[in-house]
């Protein structure tokens, strides 16, 4: 027992020491299937099996009582004729576009700034990252209270907010949701950009300086192109986040006023868990899966992400 253990211990250790180059080359090859097993099992259990079950449920009528009853295409016909469903898809799309448009420039600027060596940078960065530490539910409750028309900010600043009916109009409610999303997620994307900006080799900037490029020119000609890969990652995360936005809608607007902010993910919840129509809820879920897949394929194709191998292009 003891000898065996000792020998085993000595075996690989000794060989690694005597052939340092070998361990490097062996890991370059394709890892065995066994390595993918844990992730595959996890993925199958929590993604593929539920997906298949949702697909089956979408052809049934089920309230949670008794057994699901097969109804063919009825749920899909309902959804196609449902104006709220169509509106929810447009709203989801609008949320994604507005989210990307507002969060991306802000987080690039903040991220590049936070990657520098300015005084107070560390302290200010730490403050900017605070929203990242709060849960979505807490953030929503907080903003809900801050935006109360009578006892919140709008009540104190009537010249800016009018009667304070922010969450009572469609434009106001969408504006609030986009703003809160920006407040909540910009720090995360700032963090991504900060890391990427720090990784840009300084020789590029030194060369640009010698060529006479100023700060602004360096930002547009070096920093932005070098952040391209990062931007795609960040935007894809925003798209996924936008599609699955749920808690903020639930707590801030409850899909209202009326159905004015009922985005697809929220509508799915409403149909399945408030109206107990799991068939229609599952159909909406499938629509979301298809839409999310399509969007991701489009983003990957358009950005040329699949052809890029390294972010250090031009070096």
């Amino acid at each position, binding site marked *: 027992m003891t000898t065996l253990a000792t020998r085993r211990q000595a075996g690989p250790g000794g060989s690694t020491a005597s052939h340092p180059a070998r361990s490097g080359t062996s890991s370059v090859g394709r890892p065995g299937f066994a390595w993918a097993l844990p992730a595959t099992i996890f*993925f199958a259990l*929590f*993604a593929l*099996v*539920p*997906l298949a*079950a*949702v697909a089956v*449920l979408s052809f049934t009528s*089920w*309230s*949670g*009582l*008794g*057994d699901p009853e097969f109804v063919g295409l009825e749920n899909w016909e309902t959804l196609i004729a449902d104006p709220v469903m169509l509106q929810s898809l447009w709203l989801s799309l609008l949320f994604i576009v507005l989210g990307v448009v507002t969060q991306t420039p802000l987080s690039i600027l903040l991220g590049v700034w936070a990657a520098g060596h300015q005084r107070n940078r560390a302290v200010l960065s730490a403050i900017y990252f605070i929203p990242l530490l709060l849960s979505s539910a807490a953030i929503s409750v907080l903003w*809900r*209270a801050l*935006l*109360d*028309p*009578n*006892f919140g900010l709008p009540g104190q600043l009537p010249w800016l907010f009018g*009667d*304070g*009916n*922010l*969450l*009572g*109009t469609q434009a*106001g409610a969408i504006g609030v949701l986009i703003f809160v999303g920006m407040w909540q997620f910009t720090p995360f994307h700032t963090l991504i950009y900060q890391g990427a900006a720090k990784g840009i080799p300084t020789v590029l900037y030194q060369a640009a300086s010698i060529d006479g490029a100023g700060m602004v020119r360096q930002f547009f000609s070096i920093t932005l192109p070098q952040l391209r890969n990062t931007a795609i990652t960040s935007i*894809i995360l925003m798209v*996924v986040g936008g599609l*699955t936005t*749920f808690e903020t809608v639930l707590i801030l*607007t*409850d899909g*209202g*006023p*009326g*159905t004015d902010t009922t985005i697809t*993910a929220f509508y799915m919840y409403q149909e*399945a*868990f*408030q*109206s*107990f*129509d*799991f068939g229609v*809820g*599952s159909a909406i*879920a499938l629509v*979301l*899966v298809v839409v*999310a*897949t399509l969007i*991701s394929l489009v983003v*990957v194709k358009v950005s040329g*992400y*699949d052809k*890029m191998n390294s972010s250090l292009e031009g070096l």
Partner: protein
Amino acid sequence: MNNRTWMSRGLAGTAVMMLGLTLAGCGGGSSDASSRPENELHVTVYGDASNKVEEAMVAKFNETSDVKVVLDTIPGADYQTKLQTIIDTDSAPDVFFNWGGGSIANFVKADLLLPLDDFIEEDPQLKDAFLPSVFETAEIDGKSYGIPMRGTQPVMLFNNSEVLKQAGIDAPPATWDELLDAVEKLKAAGVTPIALGGADQWPTQMWFQYVFDRVAGEGLFQAALDGDTEVWDSEESREALGKLRELIDAGAFGTNFDSVKFTDGGSPTLLSSGRAGFELMGSWAYATHLDANPEFAENVLGYSEFPEIEGGKGDPHNLAGNTNNFYSVHKDTRYPEEAAEFLKLMYSDEFVQEQIAIGNLPTTTNTVEFLDQASNPEYAKYQFDLVKDAPHFQLSWDQAYPPEARVTIHTAVSQFFSGKIDEDGFIKAMQGL
């Protein structure tokens, strides 16, 4: 690794994981008594401050019974969802809390509940000890499915008596015209006439419940509930909607009610801080104010019945709101005898006294003997008399209909108030139920 593959897989995975949770806890299928736990009677209740009385009742019951009651509480907001998920499985409760009416209609249809008429035949007190207008709420197709527990919660017109006095209003409005008159006076005094938590949607619905009842009587809603959706397009229905529109257009609710909530303290604070004159709310508003601002609740807060509408068919003493909470019994319970014994505690003096002590108002005939023990006996008596003398107590619309109708009703009432849909839009939405 191929970037495209992992990107799309990762994306799809993320989305699917979120959605896949939809299915968590799917089960279903029937159960029978033998697969249920031995010597245990599971009682499931809505988790909140009232649980301490239920715990005391359970402890009392368990002292003498061989079959022990186990109390399971489900936190408030998730109650109906959790219940609907487990009710048709082996882990379904034997006895469970509900709101009567639509909240159990689907369970009755799925043949999951035990009619309690046999229990009542053995012990008539199980029915006779409760006020009839309340007991009716849990009767479906002529059979009784629920025994009242906890308290009744009628909706009343609350007011800030100081604000009314300053605006020159001597008494709460007894008629619709007086209400319109009060609205003008309050507007002139520079306050929002009526606080409304429109963002919660159900407070908006309260206005519909009362105006429809006053104008058309209780028959219209009952007919609609029974499937005659044409009544929504009747003359009375249009008249009721016209009355509501008149009130909204008069500026009674201000302009930003759709951003205000009752549940986060927004609308009650408008009333208690003197920035609004009235609020139509369930009787729990008293407890809400007592908690936030005891001095206001005890000295300034006023309350009255919903005003009469001249020429309307409804009795001016009809009520609307949450008639009561109920205990229903699962058909597959292993111990129906013990369940019946447990239900008998609901009209016991001890139960009634404990409910009153924590601010609930039980609807038993013996409640009246103990009203002096309430924290505000005057308020408790006023409320009890309202319920006792009401010819009809309309269960809140969103609870009278099965849960699947809730979103449609809430959306319709809220869009009507914000002006997004008109009379025709509202009628069409309600006819779609």
